[in-house]
C-alpha cells in the first residue's frame, strides 16, 4: 500500500468530499481520510495511475459524475523529436519510452507534486528504480535529438543534481548520496547508460540521477522531455502514459517522440487497448445476472468504454492482464456492498485431518492428567543454541532476522527450558506439555529440512518416577507399548535418563534434567522431561482411525 496526500481544496474544486462521497470512494477500495487541509488515500500496488492527484481525481470524477473513457490528444512528433537507442544499452538497460509535453506552468507546489509522483512510481512499479526509472527534463535546456547509449564510467562526466562539481560515472556511485543509494543496480557493469543531447551534454545517467544543468525543472520551465528507462517496454510505455496524462490534466499538450530502435516506435501511445469480455464469464464469476446494458453502464463508471463484448482500456492502466481484471472492476462498479452473500447448496463432507485427531487425543489425555498446554515460537535465539550446545549442522538459520530469534528450533526442549526459566517465580508444581514441530537438516527432503511433530512433557519439581508415571499413563491410555533403554543425554542426569523405544525405534528420551543445565538456564527447581517424536505413533495409530 502506498500512501498519497493531496490538498483538500484542490480536490474539492472538482468533487465535494461529503460523507456520502467519502463512503463511495471507500467502496472503490480506496481508504480515504480527511486530515485537516489534506486528503490522505491509500493506493494498492495495482493502481499506480492513482498516485497523482490528477489521476485520482480523474478516477473519482469518472466514477461519481462523468462516466466514460477520458481521451487525450497526442500531437505528432515535431522536428528532431527523436531519441536514438544505441545497441550498447541492450545488456544493461535496454528500453526507453519518451515524450514531450508543452504548455506547462510550474509553481513550487506543482514541482513538488511531480517529484512526489516520480518517487512513488520509482518505489512501486519501478521496484526501487531497478525495473523502471523516470527522468523529466526542462526542454529549454536541451537540444534535440537525443541519444540513449552506454558509456564506460570514466567517459561519463557531468554535474549531478545538487552536487557542487562534475563527477564521473563511478564517482557518482561512490560519492553522491543518491548514487550510493542505488549503486547496486549498475554495479558490475562495464558501461553505464546515459541520455545525451544533440550538443553532447549528458542529461542523466539512468536510473541513478539527472544532470544539475539539464535535468532540473524550475518555475521557468514551460516544456519538458520525459523518459522512462528499464527492462519491460510495455510497462515503460504505460508508466509514461501515467505521467503525460497527469501533465495533460495540468493543461499540458502532449507530443509524441520517435524512438529509433532497430524498428521504429512512437511513444506515447494513448490509444486504448482492446480486450474481449464475455458477459457470461462475468456473470458466472460474480454470481450475478447482468445484461449487456448493465455492462454499458457499469464499465464507463470505471473509466472504460464498452460495446458489443469489447472493452477499451485506458492506456494508463497497467494492471489489466486478463478479462478477470475487468470483471473485478464490474463488481466494484456494481458495488461490493450490493453483492448478496450466498452459500451454494453443494454437498461436500468435512473432515479434520487424522493427525489433528490423534494430536487432540494426546492433548486430552495429558490435560486429564493435570498438565497445562503451552505454545512456543518456532524460532530460538543464538544464545539459546549456545546454551544447548547445538552443533553447527544442527543449526538452521534464517536470513536477516529483525529480532534475536534467528534459528529454527531443533527440538521442543529449548523453548521449554526458556519457559521454565521465565516462570521460575510462579507457583509450583508446574506441569506442562506441548505438541509442536521441530526442524532438522535432511538432504533427502524437498526443502532439505525435515519437519517432525514432537511432544514434550515437563514437570517441576518432579523426579524420574513422576515423569515416567506420566509416560506410562499416556501409553496405557493410547494402548501402545514402549520400552526404556538406559541412555545418556547431554541435558539429563546419567543413570536417571533413558531412550524411549517404540516399534523398535528410538522415538525420544526421558529423564531428570541435570543441575548444571538447570543452572545454565537459570531454573531453580528440579525438572524432569520427556520429549518424543510423534511420527511413529501417528503411523501406528492412523491405521485404527
Amino acid at each position, binding site marked *: 500500500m502506498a500512501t498519497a496526500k493531496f490538498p483538500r481544496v484542490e480536490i474539492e474544486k472538482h468533487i465535494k468530499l461529503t460523507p456520502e462521497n467519502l463512503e463511495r470512494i471507500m*467502496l*472503490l477500495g480506496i481508504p480515504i481520510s480527511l486530515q485537516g487541509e489534506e486528503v490522505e488515500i491509500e493506493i*494498492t500496488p*495495482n493502481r499506480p495511475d492513482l498516485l497523482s492527484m490528477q489521476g485520482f481525481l480523474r478516477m473519482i470524477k469518472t466514477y461519481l459524475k462523468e462516466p466514460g473513457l477520458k481521451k487525450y490528444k497526442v500531437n505528432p512528433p515535431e522536428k528532431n523529436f527523436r531519441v536514438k537507442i544505441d545497441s550498447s544499452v541492450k545488456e544493461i538497460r535496454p528500453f526507453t519510452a519518451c515524450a514531450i509535453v508543452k504548455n506547462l506552468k510550474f509553481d513550487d507546489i506543482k514541482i513538488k507534486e511531480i517529484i512526489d509522483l516520480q518517487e512513488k512510481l520509482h518505489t512501486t512499479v519501478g*521496484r526501487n528504480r531497478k525495473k523502471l526509472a523516470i527522468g523529466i527534463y526542462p526542454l529549454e535546456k536541451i537540444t534535440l535529438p537525443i541519444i540513449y547509449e552506454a558509456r564506460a564510467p570514466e567517459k561519463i562526466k557531468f554535474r549531478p543534481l545538487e552536487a557542487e562539481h562534475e563527477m564521473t560515472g563511478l564517482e557518482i556511485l561512490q560519492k553522491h548520496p543518491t548514487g550510493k543509494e542505488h549503486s547496486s543496480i549498475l554495479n558490475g557493469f562495464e558501461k553505464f547508460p546515459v541520455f545525451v543531447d544533440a550538443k553532447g551534454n549528458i542529461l542523466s545517467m539512468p536510473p541513478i540521477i539527472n544532470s544539475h544543468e539539464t535535468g532540473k525543472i524550475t518555475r521557468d520551465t514551460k516544456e519538458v522531455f520525459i523518459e522512462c528507462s528499464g527492462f*519491460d517496454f*510495455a510497462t515503460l510505455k504505460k508508466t509514461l502514459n501515467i505521467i503525460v496524462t497527469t501533465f495533460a490534466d495540468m493543461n499540458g499538450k502532449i507530443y509524441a517522440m520517435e524512438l529509433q530502435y532497430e524498428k521504429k516506435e512512437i511513444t506515447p501511445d494513448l490509444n486504448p487497448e482492446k480486450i474481449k469480455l464475455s458477459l457470461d464469464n462475468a456473470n*458466472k*464469476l*460474480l*454470481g450475478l445476472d447482468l445484461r449487456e446494458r448493465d455492462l454499458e453502464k457499469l464499465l464507463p463508471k470505471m473509466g472504460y468504454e464498452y460495446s458489443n463484448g469489447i472493452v477499451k482500456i485506458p492506456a494508463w492502466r497497467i494492471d489489466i*492482464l*486478463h478479462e*478477470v*481484471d475487468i*470483471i*473485478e472492476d464490474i*463488481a*466494484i462498479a456494481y458495488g*461490493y*456492498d450490493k453483492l*448478496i*452473500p*450466498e*452459500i*451454494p447448496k*453443494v454437498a*461436500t*463432507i*468435512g*473432515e*479434520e*485431518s487424522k*493427525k*489433528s485427531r490423534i494430536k*487432540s487425543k494426546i492433548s486430552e489425555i495429558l*490435560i486429564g492428567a*493435570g498438565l*497445562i*498446554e*503451552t*505454545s512456543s*515460537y*518456532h524460532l530460538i535465539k543464538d544464545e539459546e543454541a549456545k546454551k544447548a550446545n547445538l552443533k553447527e549442522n544442527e543449526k*538452521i538459520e*534464517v*536470513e*536477516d532476522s*529483525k*529480532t534475536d530469534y534467528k534459528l*529454527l528450533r531443533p527440538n521442543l526442549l529449548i523453548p521449554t527450558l526458556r519457559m521454565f526459566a521465565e*516462570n521460575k517465580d510462579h*507457583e509450583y508444581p508446574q*506441569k506442562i506439555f506441548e505438541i509442536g*514441530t521441530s*526442524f532438522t537438516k535432511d538432504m533427502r527432503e*524437498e*526443502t*532439505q*529440512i525435515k519437519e517432525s511433530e514432537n511432544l514434550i512433557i515437563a514437570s517441576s519439581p518432579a523426579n524420574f518416577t513422576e515423569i515416567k508415571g506420566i509416560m506410562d499413563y499416556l501409553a496405557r491410555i493410547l494402548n501402545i507399548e514402549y520400552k526404556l533403554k538406559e541412555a545418556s543425554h547431554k541435558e539429563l542426569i546419567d543413570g536417571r535418563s533413558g531412550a524411549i523405544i517404540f516399534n523398535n525405534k528410538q522415538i525420544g528420551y526421558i529423564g531428570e534434567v541435570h543441575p548444571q543445565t538447570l543452572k545454565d538456564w537459570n531454573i531453580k527447581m528440579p525438572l524432569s522431561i520427556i520429549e518424543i517424536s510423534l511420527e511413529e505413533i501417528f503411523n501406528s495409530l492412523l491405521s485404527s482411525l
Partner: protein
Amino acid sequence: MKNNKESEEIIEMLSPIERKVVPYLKKSIKEIIKLSGLDESSVLLAIQFLEKKDILKTKAKTDRIIDLGTNGIYYKKNHLPERKLLLTLEEQNHLQLNEAKKLSKLSENEFKVALGVLKDKAQINIANGKISLNATKEELFKKSLEEQFLEILPIKESSLSSEQRFAFETLKKRKDIIEIKNETEISFELTEKGREIAGKEIKLDLLEEVTPEIVKSWTSGKKFRRYDIQASVPKIYGGKKHFVNQSIEYAKRIWTDLGFTEMQGNFIDSSFWVFDALFTPQDHPAREMQDTFFIKNVQAKLPDSKIVKAVKQAHETGIAGSKGWNYSWKEKDAKKVVLRTHTTSLSVRTLASLKESNFPAKYFAIGKVFRNETVDWSHGFEFYQTEGIVVDPNASLRHLLGYLKEFYKKMGYEKIKFVPSFFAYTEPSVEIQVWHPERKIWLELGGAGIFRPEVTTALLGKPIPVLAWGQGFDRIITEYYKIKDLREMYSNDIKDLRNKKEWIK
C-alpha cells in the same frame, strides 16, 4: 423463635475450638485462654472463625510493650549489679575499689555502672580509693525503683506511672536490661448474634468428618457440624488446553461443519509453492528478505517439470489468455527456501494434487505463518492464519462472501463488510472487515478472492474458479481475550495460562 433457630444453626456450625470458646465469650481473651484450656493461638483462631460467622467483631490495638531484655532476665534472678555491690559492702564496709569489685563478682563494666548508680543515689561515698556505705539499713533493704520495675514487667508503655517511667528511662540507657516490643492486642465485641449465644454451655455431640468408621456404624440421629460454606478455600488449578488452541479447535469445527476438509503441510517450503505458483512476480517486494524469512544454506527441489513449465509460462508470457508479467522467470529464485508467509502454500499444493473428478472440493487449514518482523505489542514474527479454498466450476464471488460471512457469524461477528482490495494472485479480491459491537469499530481481518486464471490453469490445467482466503486469526483471539499486547499470545506465562478463561463459543 426465629432467633432460637438461627442461634441453633450457628452453634451447629461451630468447629470444636469455637465450641470451647463460646461459653466464655463474655470474658476477655486472656481469661478465655485460661478458662477454655486452649492455647493462645487456638483461641485466636477460634476468634477469627467466630468473626467470619458474624458472632463478634475484633479490634486490634497496637501498643509498645516493655519487657525484660537478656540482661534484665538475668538481673531479675540474680540482682542488679548495684544491689550486689550494696550487699557486699553491707557485709564488709570501707572496701578498696578492687576488692569490692572482686567480692561482689562484677565485671569491669557492671562495677562501673553500679558505682555510678549508687553514687547518684548518694548511697555510697568514695574517698581515698575506698568505698563506704552512706545509707541507712532501712534504705538499704528497700527495693529500688528499678528493681520494682523489673518485677512488674512486661507492661504497656502507655500505662506507666511517673515512678515507673523514671525507672524505665534509667534502665533504658543500660545494656539489654529492658526491651521494647510492638504488640498487637486483640480484643472483641460481641454482635447481636454473638450476644445470643455467648456464655452458652454447648453440649452438642456433632460429627466432624465422615470416616469409614462412621459409615460402618451409622445410625440415624447423629448430626454433623455445619460448615460455613461461604468460607474461602485454597485455589486449585487444572490441566488446560492452550487458549489459542481452544479457539483454533472451535474454528476447525466451523469449517468441518461447513463441509471443509483439513489440509496439513510444512512450515518450510520453497518459494515456488509460496510465491511462484501464486503468480507473485520474482521481484515482488513480499519476496525480499526484509519481509520474509529465507533459510540459509539450503535449496529446494522443484516439482515435476509440467507444473514448473506452466508456472514459468504464466509469469513470462502469460497463460489462459493472460499477458503475464513479461520478465524472465528464474528457477534459482523459485528454489529459495522460506518459512511460509501464508498458509496459501497449502492450498496451492492441494490444488496441484487434485483431479477433475474431485470437484467440487472444499479445504481449510489453520496454521502458523511467518514474517520477518520486529516484536512489539502490535507485531510478531509468527501468527495464525485461517485458510480456505473452494474448487468448484460453478463457484462465484457471492459464494466466497457467503462462506466468509457464515464463518465470522459463528465467530460472533454478525456484521461484515466486503471492500475491494488487491492481491497478486486473486481477482476479484476482497478485504473483509467485521463490526466489533463492543468497541464499535470495523476490524480488518485480511484478504480473500478468486484465484487468478494464471494460478489455476498452471495448477489444475484449466481455469477452474477457486475461491480462496487466508485471514489473520490472531486478531480474533486477542479481541476475545482482550489481549492488548501480542507478545502475551505465546509468552507461556504459567500464571496467565492457569487463569485464562475458557474459549466459550
